[in-house]
């Protein structure tokens, strides 16, 4: 069964109103090509889950796709706050369900393991617990008297992840191994779409099966998208593109400027390759390449 498809068809697997979880962490490994396509297809009312997120959430908010963000953190790290996230949440246009990192992981694990809840001590004492009476409960273990937080399941309709390679059957590999928490969202999701740097023959997987990250039955569509995490990084292949973050943040100071910037630099280019050309072309790719990594 060939799971390789176009980015347009894969994005069509995401219905309006869906809960969409986005892989990567902060400036690393985000599925930007797929996120751009969701914006281009003008998805609406999405609930977006990102454990530690940044640019992908900001694009989706700028594109008017988002109803609620479920996250531990949304920022551009040392390059500043995520401007659309900040503005829209402050304006109340976009809702925020804030969890700490491990509380969110526990909700995803409860879903993945088919458990009604997962316990953790993370988050005890914070004001985060009071935000979520329906999904977090502070409990006391009757035997030991220890306090813990019970976290309910978080069902995810579609997980979007970016990885290094896939074969046509949908086996996916993160090189040299998965470091971030993408497995947590893949395991909690009903459908997973993987964009990859390269689609390779199945032989490359059977030659090194210990390096396979997701088996084919966990993956529903594969899209080849070289530099598909741009402007975030993909270890060990390339770093993040600072210039894009800077241009983006600068443009965001003025709504009209940002609108033009977003159309020209993000949503306008017809293909992903056109997008890369619109954002620095070959020079940008050489700048972020880690040729000696």
């Amino acid at each position, binding site marked *: 069964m060939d799971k390789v498809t176009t980015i347009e068809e894969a994005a069509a697997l995401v219905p309006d109103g869906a809960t969409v979880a986005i892989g990567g*962490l*902060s400036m690393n490994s985000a599925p930007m090509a797929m996120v751009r396509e969701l914006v281009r297809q003008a998805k609406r009312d999405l609930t977006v889950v990102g454990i530690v997120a940044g640019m992908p959430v900001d694009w989706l908010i700028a594109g008017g796709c988002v109803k609620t963000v479920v996250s531990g953190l949304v920022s551009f*790290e040392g390059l500043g706050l995520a401007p659309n996230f*900040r503005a829209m949440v402050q304006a109340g246009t976009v809702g925020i369900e804030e969890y*700490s990192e491990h509380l969110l992981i526990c909700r995803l694990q409860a879903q993945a393991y088919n458990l009604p809840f997962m316990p*953790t001590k993370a988050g005890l004492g914070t004001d985060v617990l009071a935000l979520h009476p329906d999904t977090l409960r502070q409990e006391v273990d009757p035997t030991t008297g220890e306090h813990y937080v019970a976290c309910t399941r978080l069902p995810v309709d579609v997980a979007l992840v970016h990885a290094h390679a896939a074969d046509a059957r949908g086996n996916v590999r993160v090189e040299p*191994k998965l470091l971030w928490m*993408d497995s947590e969202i893949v395991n909690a999701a009903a459908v997973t779409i993987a964009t990859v740097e390269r689609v390779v023959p199945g032989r490359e997987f059977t030659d090194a099966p210990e390096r396979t990250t997701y088996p084919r039955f966990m993956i529903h569509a594969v899209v080849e998208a070289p530099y598909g995490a741009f402007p975030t990084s993909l270890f060990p292949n390339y770093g993040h593109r600072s210039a894009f973050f800077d241009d983006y943040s600068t443009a965001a100071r003025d709504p009209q400027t940002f609108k033009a910037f977003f159309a020209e630099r993000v949503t306008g280019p017809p293909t992903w390759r056109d997008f890369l050309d619109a954002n620095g072309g070959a020079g940008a790719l050489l700048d972020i390449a880690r040729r000696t990594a």
Partner: protein
Amino acid sequence: MSVSPTAAAAPSAGAADWRSSPPANDYTVDELMIVALSECFVDGDQACNGMASFIPVTAFQLALRTHAPDLVWLAGAVGLDPQPDRVPASTLEAPLWRNSVMYVEQYGDFWNFALNGRWLQKFCVGAAQLDKFGNGNNSVIGAEYHKPRVRLPGTAGLGDMGSIGKQLYYWNPNHNPRAIVDRVDFVSCAGWLGGGDERRALGLAGGPELVITNLCVMDFEPTSRHMRLKSLHPGISIEQVQAATGFEVLVPDGAIGLTRVPTEHEVHLIRHVIDPDGMRLREFGK
């Protein structure tokens, strides 16, 4: 015997150097903060860092090259015992993990290490707001969570690390009354909560230990758990600290000590070996 290849690999990192080196004349406040934070990490500790953590990352490497050659550092919570060329532009990306011994998975490994209680016992917290009981806020500024005046990045790992028994070390390069406040608008990171034994009553071990700012070092009074002046940076007065702080600063009896001035050797290591590109200055808006 205990030998560290990391320390051995560092140029002129012999123990005698840093102990005998005289105080520097031309140190800057970033270097002073780094040295103060570095002293908190000793052999036998495991340290990890999160995003935009230039001061902690520089402090860990300084400790490794001076008094704590056996310190374990998980760079970006990923790379064990790395050998980075220099502090890079992101403290959560690959150049920081160069030559690691292990890549730790966030999924499966890291959170098990962190939650266990025996490892990674100390954690450095940078928060937008910090209050007199050492609670941190990185979520919202404003009284109403859902109508925030400023929407901040979010709780992320702070909401975990504050609750799972870590000793917390806050750093803040911009000590002002909006950052060091009476009560945080939102507790993203559990400190001493309402003070006294409130934290212990909830079964939480650890807690805030120190606050290192660009003006002073503060600890917490053991009974009330109220933030208390511990040492002033050279040239800073109690009045300056008070003016920059959103609550009445608790001053201990007797003379207030001065924060230790970096040695020439420490300044050399920071400026020329560990962070030659001055990434640490990004935390000061430079």
